[in-house]
C-alpha cells in the first residue's frame, strides 16, 4: 500500500475509536511534555550558567605567559611546544600580534604590583592592578559606587571595599556588621590618593642620575630605578569580596590600563628579562587576551601556543562544568523519557485491543488481497500517527508548563528582590527532536501489535462471528 493510503486508513481507524485513541495520545503528550519540560530546564539552566560566566569575564579570557616563566614546570604544552630556551619573549610586538588575531577582542598586559599609597598623610601598602575599559561590564563591578574610569589614561583609581575601610580606619571588628559600600564611598569619592612607586627607567647614557635609588648594569643593558609619585582621584568604590575575587580583579586598588602602563613601574620580572629589555620594548610577565565569543577560546588558544607561549584559560575549568551539564541532561532526559515509556505501553495496549476488535476486518483485508506487510504497515501507521500527534501536543504542553514555571519563579525572585532570570529554553532542535523521538518510540511500541496483526490467520479471523 502507498504511504498516503496508509496514512488515510490509519487516521480513519483512529477516528473510529476516538475516545480510546485520544486517551492514548494524551498519555504520549504527557510523556513528551515531561521530557520537553525536563530538557528545557536543563538547557535553560546551562544557558543561565554560561551567561553568568561570560559576564564574569572568565570564560572569554586567555592568560598568556612566556614559556620562560614556566620553566621546569613540565606541563604538557611545555613538552609539546618548542623548548623553553628558544621561546619568544612576551613583549609589545607579541602583544600587538595577538591583538590582531581574528576573534580576539583585545589583548592587554597584566600589570599588577605592590606599592605604597598615601592618603591623608598616612601610608598604606596595597596590591594595585590595571584594568582595561572593557572591565566595566564585568559583573565584578556590579554594585559599585561612583563610576568607572573616564578614560584609559585618566589619573583615577577605583578602590576595593576592604581597602576603603582601611583608608577610613573603619576596619570592622570580627563578627561586627560590615559598613555598606554607600557609606564608605561618600567620604572617599573625589578625594585624592597618592601612589608612591618605583619607576624603571631605561638608561642608555652611562651617567647615573644622582637621585636614583640605584643602577643595575647587565650585559650592556641597564636601567635605573627612580622613586616617583602619581596623584590619583578616587572615582569608585567596588563592592568586591576579596576572597572571591578572580583573575584581573584580584587587587585592592585599580588603575586605568594606559595610565598604569605609562608609569613604567619596576616589576619583579624586569630583573630576569633584563637582557631583553634593552630593545626598549616593554616586556610583560603575562597578557590577558579576551576573545569575542567564548566558543572561540580553543582556536585562539591554539594559535597563541603556536607562537611559542604558554596559555591558560578557564575553558579547562569549564570542561568540568560541561561534564556536569552532560550528566544533568542524561538524568533529566531519563526521567523525562520514563513518562514517555509508560505512555508507549499505552500504545501497545490500545493496538492489541484494536487487533481483537478488528480481527474480522483484518481477516477480510487479507482475504481480498492484503499482504502481511500491508496489515503490519497499517498498524505501524496508526502507532506512528499517535506518536506524532502526541509529540506535537506534548511539545506545546511542555512549552506551556515551562512558561508557567518561569513566570511563577520570576514572581518569587522579584519578591526576594532578585533580578528575573530566564532559565527556561525550548530550542527548535528540542521541539523537532521530541516529536521525532515520540514518533520512533511509538513505532517501537507498535512493533509487537503490528506483527501480531500481520500474522493473524485469515481463516480463523473470518470464522469469528
Amino acid at each position, binding site marked *: 500500500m502507498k504511504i498516503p493510503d496508509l496514512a488515510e486508513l490509519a487516521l480513519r*481507524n483512529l477516528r473510529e475509536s476516538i475516545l480510546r485513541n485520544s486517551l492514548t495520545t494524551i498519555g504520549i503528550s504527557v510523556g513528551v511534555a515531561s521530557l520537553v519540560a525536563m530538557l528545557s530546564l536543563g538547557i535553560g539552566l546551562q544557558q543561565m550558567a554560561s551567561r553568568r560566566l561570560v559576564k564574569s569575564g572568565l570564560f572569554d579570557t586567555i592568560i598568556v605567559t612566556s614559556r620562560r616563566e614556566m620553566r621546569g614546570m613540565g606541563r604538557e604544552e611545555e613538552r609539546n611546544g618548542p623548548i623553553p630556551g628558544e621561546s619568544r619573549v612576551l613583549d609589545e610586538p607579541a602583544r600587538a600580534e595577538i591583538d590582531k588575531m581574528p576573534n580576539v577582542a583585545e589583548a592587554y598586559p597584566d600589570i599588577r604590583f605592590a606599592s605604597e599609597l598615601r592618603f591623608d598623610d598616612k601610608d598604606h601598602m596595597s596590591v594595585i592592578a590595571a584594568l582595561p575599559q572593557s572591565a566595566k561590564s564585568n559583573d565584578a563591578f556590579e554594585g559599585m559606587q561612583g563610576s568607572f574610569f573616564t578614560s584609559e589614561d585618566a589619573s583615577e583609581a577605583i578602590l576595593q571595599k576592604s581597602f576603603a575601610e582601611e583608608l577610613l580606619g573603619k576596619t570592622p571588628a570580627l563578627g561586627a556588621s560590615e559598613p555598606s559600600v554607600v557609606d564608605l564611598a561618600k567620604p572617599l569619592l573625589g578625594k585624592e590618593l597618592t601612589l608612591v612607586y618605583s619607576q624603571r627607567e631605561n638608561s642608555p647614557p652611562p651617567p647615573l642620575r644622582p637621585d636614583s635609588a640605584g643602577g643595575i648594569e647587565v650585559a650592556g643593558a641597564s636601567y635605573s630605578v627612580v622613586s616617583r609619585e602619581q596623584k590619583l582621584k578616587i572615582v569608585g568604590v567596588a563592592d568586591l569580596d576579596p576572597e572571591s575575587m578572580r583573575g584581573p580583579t584580584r587587587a585592592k586598588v585599580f588603575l586605568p590600563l594606559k595610565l598604569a602602563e605609562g608609569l613604567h613601574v619596576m616589576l619583579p620580572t624586569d630583573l630576569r628579562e633584563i637582557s631583553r629589555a634593552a630593545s626598549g620594548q616593554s616586556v610583560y610577565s603575562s597578557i590577558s587576551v579576551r576573545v569575542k565569543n567564548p566558543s572561540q577560546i580553543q582556536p585562539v588558544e591554539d594559535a597563541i601556543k603556536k607562537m611559542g607561549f604558554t596559555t591558560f584559560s578557564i575553558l579547562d575549568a569549564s570542561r568540568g562544568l560541561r561534564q556536569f551539564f552532560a550528566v544533568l541532561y542524561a538524568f533529566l532526559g531519563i526521567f523525562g523519557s520514563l513518562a514517555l515509556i509508560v505512555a508507549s505501553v499505552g500504545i501497545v495496549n490500545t493496538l492489541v485491543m484494536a487487533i481483537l476488535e478488528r480481527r474480522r*476486518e483484518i481477516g477480510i483485508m487479507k*482475504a*481480498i*488481497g*492484503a*499482504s*502481511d506487510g500491508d496489515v503490519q504497515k497499517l498498524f505501524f501507521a496508526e502507532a506512528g500517527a499517535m506518536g506524532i500527534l502526541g509529540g506535537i501536543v506534548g511539545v506545546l504542553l511542555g512549552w506551556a508548563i515551562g512558561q508557567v514555571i518561569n513566570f511563577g519563579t520570576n514572581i518569587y525572585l522579584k519578591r526576594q528582590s532578585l533580578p528575573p532570570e530566564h532559565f527556561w529554553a525550548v530550542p527548535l532542535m528540542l521541539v523537532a527532536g521530541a516529536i521525532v523521538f515520540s514518533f520512533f518510540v511509538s513505532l517501537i511500541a507498535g512493533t509487537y501489535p503490528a506483527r501480531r496483526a500481520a500474522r493473524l490467520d485469515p*481463516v480463523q479471523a473470518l470464522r469469528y462471528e
Partner: protein
Amino acid sequence: MASTTAPTSSQDTSTFAIRSENVCRHYKMGETLIRAVDGVSLDVRAGEFVALLGSSGSGKSSMLNLIAGLDRPTSGSVIVQDRDLAKMSREELAKYRLHVVGMVFQSFNLIASMTLLENVELPLRFAEVDRGKRETMAREALERVGLKARLDHRPSELSGGEQQRAALARALINRPKLLLADEPTGNLDSHTGTEIMNMVRDFNRELGMTVVMVTHERALAERYVQRMVFLADGKLVDDRSNSPSAGGQG
C-alpha cells in the same frame, strides 16, 4: 497494476483452471486430529461453474479456502494457473488472492466503518492503483451491480441483498480469473438469493470467469451450475455434471 499482474484469459494454456492432487488439510483440535480435507483430487476447467456440496463439516469450505489461498494444505498440491499454491510464500499468496481470486462470503464481509465505495476500492489500494483511476473503477463496479445510488452508504444502512451485491462488486474489481463463493445466498431470502445467483451466472458467462461455489442447497446448485461435486468427511464422494435449469432465464 491489477491488469499487468493478473494474467488474461488468452494466456491460459492449460484447459484446467484449478487442479488439486490428493490434497489434505488436517489440523489438531486438542488431542484429536481433524481431517477437514482428506485426499481430494479435483480438476476444474477454465470457465466452468462448479458447486461444492455437502453437509456442514464435510470439508467444502476448507477446500474452498485452500483454492482461495487463504489456507495451505497439509499435503498434496493445489495448482492454479500452473502454480502450486502449497509452495507459495505468504507474500505470493497475498498477491494471488489480490489479482487472481475474487471472493464472496455468506456474511458479506464488508468493512463496517467504510462506505460502499471505499469497500469496493479497498483491493485497488492494496494493488496500489492510482487514486483517480481507483474511484472511477469502483463507481463502475457498483453501477454494474445496481448500487449507483448507494455509493456513500455504509453497509449497515443496506439490505442483505445490497450488501452481497457490493461484495460482488468488490470481488470483481481486480478482474480476477476465479470467483469463489462461500454460501453466497445463505443469509438472503430466496428472491434476493436468485438475484445474486443470476449475477454470478452472468459473470461466469459473460466474463468467462471460473466460478466455484460452496453450498449445502442442492436445489440451488441444480438451477445454476454445470457440475456438482459432493464432499463428505473431507473426501470427494461424487462428481457429476448438471444442466442448469435456470440457464435459459435471466
